[in-house]
Each structure stands twice: as structure tokens, then as C-alpha cells.
């Protein structure tokens, strides 16, 4: 089976011909339905990886394929969430969730006809991440963790096949973060969606992912890859067993080497 998301020997730079390379010789292949985590020192081109895989940027050299097709335009089958929730303050939380449906086809053309149905879908999705009945509130009436949950919902409302997460929990406190790990874990399990998670947090990567990729310092490329054999479903307790600690320790060794 060929990979769902594949970057093959990709090189990319910003700022014209003389620009410094963000990634160089980056290859990564993520299977359909797989949960992949990408870790690395800061500035290693993790966000560039996100942009390349979603068709927001195109590589200088090398090839990017998503769902069996070469990427030469925004992929439209991806949902994205970032460290900042970036919800629109003038829309209620439920209306924020509807935003992707107002953009992406075929929903866009059906917006007027199926509005009530979409609203219901938004409320169901909110309920699935523990925000039942919060749809009518404005984002700024929600806590940071709740906003981030809503932001995840917005990334999922159009039922994307690929979910791209760029340090989505970095700005949250430790307990909220662990709660949201479980939210993501359950969403992934329920929807069999392909997830690529970019993170600085090794425990987060090991807890959630099927495979962890370690990137080198800039210009970034994959220097190590670790399959996480911990059985699913994983409970937060798993983060305290020796096997888990060993994996985190091993990955940490790779990162330290990558920083040098």
C-alpha cells in the first residue's frame, strides 16, 4: 500500500533564490489512518512540512503526494489547527465551526439548503469534545482549553481525511493539555483519519502517535523514525510505565544529537 501523505526528497526555501533552506532532502511517508508525530528542535522546518503537505507551499525540488495525487494546489481534504485557536470573535462558536463549510465544496453550494443540518452537525461535534451546549457562546466567553477544542472541531467539521496539527496544545496548562490529548486520541480512533502532529512535547508525541519522526536542525530532514508499539487504546496511565519512559528517553537522545 502506498503512503497517504508522502514527501519525497523535498527541498524548500523561503525568500527567493538566495534564501536559506528550510528543509533539505526531507522524506516522510504517512500511511492512511496513521497517527504520525513530528518532533525536532525549534526552527527545524516543521511548519514548512505542514505547508508543503497541505499545498500552501510547493517544494523547490522533490515531490509531494497526498491521497495518491501530486500536490499542485491547496489539498482541500485537510483540516488544520494551530497553537492559537484563531476563532473569529464576531461569530459564535457554532458559527465558527461552519466557516470551513462556507468555503469548501460541495458544502459551500449547499450552505443555504442544509444550514440547519450543518448546525446540528456542529453541535454534535462540539458535544463530542466536551463542549455540549456551548455553541451559542462567543469564543472569548470560553476558556483557552475550550477555545482550542472548538478550533479542533473547526478543523474536523468538513470531515477531512487528513488532520494537520501544529503544536495545538503548546499554549495550554499541563492538565488541560492531557485532557486534549485524550480528545484527539478518541477523535482519531473514532474517525480513522490520518493525523500529522507537529510538536515539541515528546510525551505528547509518544502518547498519541503510531510513529514518531525526528527532524534535524535547519535545514530540516528526518534523522530518526520510531514506531510506537504501545497497545491501543492508550490510557494516560501509560505515560508512567517504564516502556513509555524509555521511548521518550530514546527520542530525547535523537533530539539532542539533532541540535548539535
Amino acid at each position, binding site marked *: 500500500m502506498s503512503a497517504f501523505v508522502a514527501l519525497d526528497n523535498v527541498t524548500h526555501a523561503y525568500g527567493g533564490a538566495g534564501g536559506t533552506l528550510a528543509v533539505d532532502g526531507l522524506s516522510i511517508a504517512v500511511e492512511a489512518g496513521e497517527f504520525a508525530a513530528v518532533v525536532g528542535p525549534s526552527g527545524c522546518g516543521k511548519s514548512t512540512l505542514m*505547508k508543503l503537505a*497541505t*499545498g*500552501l507551499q510547493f517544494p523547490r525540488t522533490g515531490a509531494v503526494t497526498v491521497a495518491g495525487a501530486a500536490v499542485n*494546489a*491547496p*489539498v*482541500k481534504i*485537510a483540516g*488544520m489547527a*494551530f497553537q*492559537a485557536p*484563531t476563532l*473569529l*470573535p*464576531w461569530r459564535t462558536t457554532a458559527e465558527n465551526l461552519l*466557516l*470551513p463549510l*462556507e*468555503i*469548501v*465544496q460541495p458544502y459551500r453550494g449547499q450552505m443555504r439548503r442544509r444550514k440547519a443540518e450543518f448546525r446540528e452537525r456542529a453541535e454534535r461535534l462540539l458535544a463530542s469534545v466536551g463542549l455540549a451546549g456551548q455553541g451559542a457562546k*462567543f469564543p*472569548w466567553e470560553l476558556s483557552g482549553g475550550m477555545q482550542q477544542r472548538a478550533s479542533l472541531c*473547526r*478543523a474536523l467539521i*468538513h470531515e477531512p481525511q487528513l488532520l*494537520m496539527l*501544529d503544536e495545538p496544545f503548546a499554549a495550554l496548562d499541563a492538565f488541560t493539555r492531557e485532557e486534549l490529548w485524550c480528545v484527539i486520541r478518541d477523535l482519531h480512533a473514532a474517525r480513522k483519519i490520518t493525523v500529522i502532529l507537529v510538536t515539541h512535547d515528546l510525551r505528547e508525541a509518544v502518547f498519541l502517535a503510531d510513529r514518531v519522526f525526528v527532524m534535524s536542525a535547519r535545514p530540516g530532514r528526518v534523522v530518526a523514525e520510531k514506531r510506537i508499539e504501545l497497545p491501543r487504546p492508550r490510557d494516560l496511565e501509560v505515560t508512567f510505565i517504564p516502556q513509555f519512559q524509555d521511548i521518550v528517553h530514546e527520542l530525547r537522545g535523537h533530539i539532542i544529537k539533532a541540535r548539535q
Partner: protein
Amino acid sequence: MNRTAIIVRLSPWLFTIGLLIVWEASVHIFKIPVFFLPPPTAVAQAFVEFAGPLARNSWITLETTLIGFALAVGFGLLLGLLVGWSRTIYAGLYPLMIGFNAIPKVAVVPILVLWFGIGFIPAVLTAFLISFFPIVVNVATGLATIEPELEDVLKALGASKLDIMRKVGIPRTLPYFFGSLKVAITLAFVGSVISESVASNYGIGNLMLQAQAQFQVPLIFAGLVVLAIEGIAMYAVMAILERRMTGWAQRSGFAQS
């Protein structure tokens, strides 16, 4: 309502009355002649005496200002969206606009008179020219500060530039836009009165110039008071409009504390 709240409510009136009392008292204590600085009572007298001309001319000034302001809103909004839309247009127009804004508008009035004759049209155009700039700058700023992450979310879904403008750019620009209206309406008054004083037979600006020629100093001050009242009233209208349209942007307790 507690004591502090009541005092805060009344304080604008108390301060205004206080100013008038100090003014009146100073004129009498220092024996300042009426033709130099008339006391508030003399200004009030002028209000009664010249009620007709004051009402007529203040209406003309208000009308002039509002038409100029309306033009500025339409043009400023359009230009702001255009400048915010394209880096090329931004780069090309910005130096020109800054240069244009640096020109004192009173220096433009003679040209307008040359083209349109004295009176209503130069006054409207001066009000327009002086007040569109802050609107353009604010609208463009609102568009320029869209979060790049949000742009990515929408672009990855295949959103066009127009989509992003409609769904994110314009709504998030509204607080900047309505904020700029408060500045623009005040400037519009400056513009229309300048033009009326230099090149018109109507309006408060012209009335004050004539009063000066006839040494009716209390009437000059009455003209100033009329302008202040009109300015405050229009500012209040803009502030209410701002709160109505963009309440979501004013949830901070900072200004209230």
C-alpha cells in the same frame, strides 16, 4: 447607583459649568474688555440676539460637513480595501497618500475655488479631502493584520482571496473602520469651516469672519460654541454606531476601569 457612580455621571456637566464660572469670574476680576474676551454671559446674549443667522449657518455647516464626510467614508472605505487587497497597490499609493495628507488643506482651497467657484462645493470637497485619510489607513491596517494561521486554514480549503476578504478581512476591519469615523468626522468639521472662512458666503466659518470684521466678538465665540456642540454631537453618533456595529471588539474592561 453609589456616590462615585453619580459623580462620574455628572462630572462632564460639573467640569463644563466650572469652566464657565472660572471664565466669567476671570473676565470680571481682571477687567478684560468684551472685544478681547467676552464673558459667557455676553456669548449667551449673542446667541439670543443672533439666533436666526446662527441657526441658519450652523445648519449649512453641518450639511456641508456631513456630505463631505459621506464622500470620505465611501471613498476611504473603497481605497482602504484596495490598498489592503494588493501589495502592489499599497506600495504604489502609500507614498502618494502620505504626501497628499501632509499638504495643509487650507492651501488646496484656492485651487478648489478656481475650479468650482466660491461657496458650497469647495467646502464639501475640503471636508472630504481632510477626512478620508484616517479611514483609508485604518481599513488597510485591519486587512493587513489578519492572522496568517487563519489565512492558512482557509487557503488549505481552497478559499480564494475574495473569500478570505469576505469572511475574515472585512469583518475584522470593522472596528478599525468605525474607530476611524470618530477621527474623520471631527476633521471634516475642520475642513468645512476652513473653506467657509476662506471662500464662502455661508456657514459658521463665514459668519465668524463677518463678525470679526464688524468687531462682534461675542458672536465669534457663539460661532465657536456652535461648532463645538455640532462636533460633540456627531462624535457621539459615531461612537454609538461603533458600539452597535462592533460590540464584539469592545469586550475589554480596560477602558471602563
